């Protein structure tokens, strides 16, 4: 698996992008309901990235991020990770729980709970889109929250994924609220062997030609 971008044909990537679009649409609706404001979205990017490229994708190893992570059980065992830019956390907390003084590095118990629940609900929105297109049963577990530099967050999460594929599926969307952007990056880190199973189910369900 030297070049992860070669795992899918361009046509298959387009189809995966459509799943990403529907998932992001579900997520935008969920976010809008949670914050009580209109939320639009811009173009969704869907990528297959090597694990060691994730921190760079997020803006570098040292960039501070908030990540909600949770195990996903079922036909595609993996870890789901959703990253939020750290500087938007106080504002999200303000919208979710009405507190204006949350410090992202020292969130209150209620603030942590709100951010975890937001991650959990957005993950549910993406997994529902995957289920709708690929018909794989995917159920997520209890969420955790890590606030740290991007590479430290990944190290924390990866240590729990003992046997994994070396690539991640990424869906990145810019949610727009009142002309302000909130970038949400959703990652699936498959357990060893899951990714190939996913692509087979995906190819079958979408009626696409198989990989060469």
């Amino acid at each position, binding site marked *: 698996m030297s070049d992860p971008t070669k795992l899918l044909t361009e046509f298959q990537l387009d189809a995966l992008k459509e799943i990403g679009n529907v998932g992001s649409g579900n997520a935008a609706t969920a976010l809008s309901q949670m914050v009580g404001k209109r939320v639009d979205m811009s173009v969704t990017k869907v990528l297959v990235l090597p694990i060691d490229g994730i921190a760079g994708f997020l803006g570098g190893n040292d960039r501070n991020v908030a990540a909600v992570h949770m195990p996903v059980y079922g036909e595609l065992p993996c870890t789901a990770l959703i990253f939020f830019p750290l500087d938007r956390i106080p504002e999200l907390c303000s919208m979710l729980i009405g507190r204006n003084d949350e410090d992202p590095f020292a969130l209150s118990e209620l603030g942590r709970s709100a951010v975890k629940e937001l991650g959990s609900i957005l993950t549910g929105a993406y997994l529902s889109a995957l289920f709708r297109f690929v018909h794989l049963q995917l159920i997520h577990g*209890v969420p955790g929250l890590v606030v740290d530099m991007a590479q430290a967050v990944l190290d924390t999460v990866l240590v729990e994924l003992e046997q994994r594929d070396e690539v991640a599926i990424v869906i990145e969307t810019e949610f727009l609220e009142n002309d302000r952007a909130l970038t949400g990056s959703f990652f699936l880190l498959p357990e060893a062997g899951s990714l190939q199973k996913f692509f087979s189910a995906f190819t079958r369900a979408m009626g696409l030609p198989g990989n060469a």
Partner: protein
Amino acid sequence: MAQKVMLVDDASFMRMMLKNILVGSGYEVVGEAENGAKAVEQYKSLKPDLVMMDIIMPEMGGIDAVREIMKVNPSAKILMCSSMGQQSLVVEAIQAGAKDFIVKPFQPSNVLDAVKKALG
């Protein structure tokens, strides 16, 4: 007399949201639990008119908790409330004994409609 509701969710944030919606409409929240096992124990002593139950929780999940509560009281009224709205989960919850299923996030009006219907 206000009808008694028990809230079961591992997220204190979600319990707070539900509590605000319910109390604002005249319901009494008599108990809160953060996992299924605590919910079953509290159900026995609090005897609420309705339980609002999350599915994904540590220790004991919501569907197992529904099964346990139905053993205690086969006519218990339980409303599931989860971010996972996949059909198989909904069917499993209903088969376990839940009256209805709300997908998170929710509008207050949808919660109140479902609560009213379940208590019907």
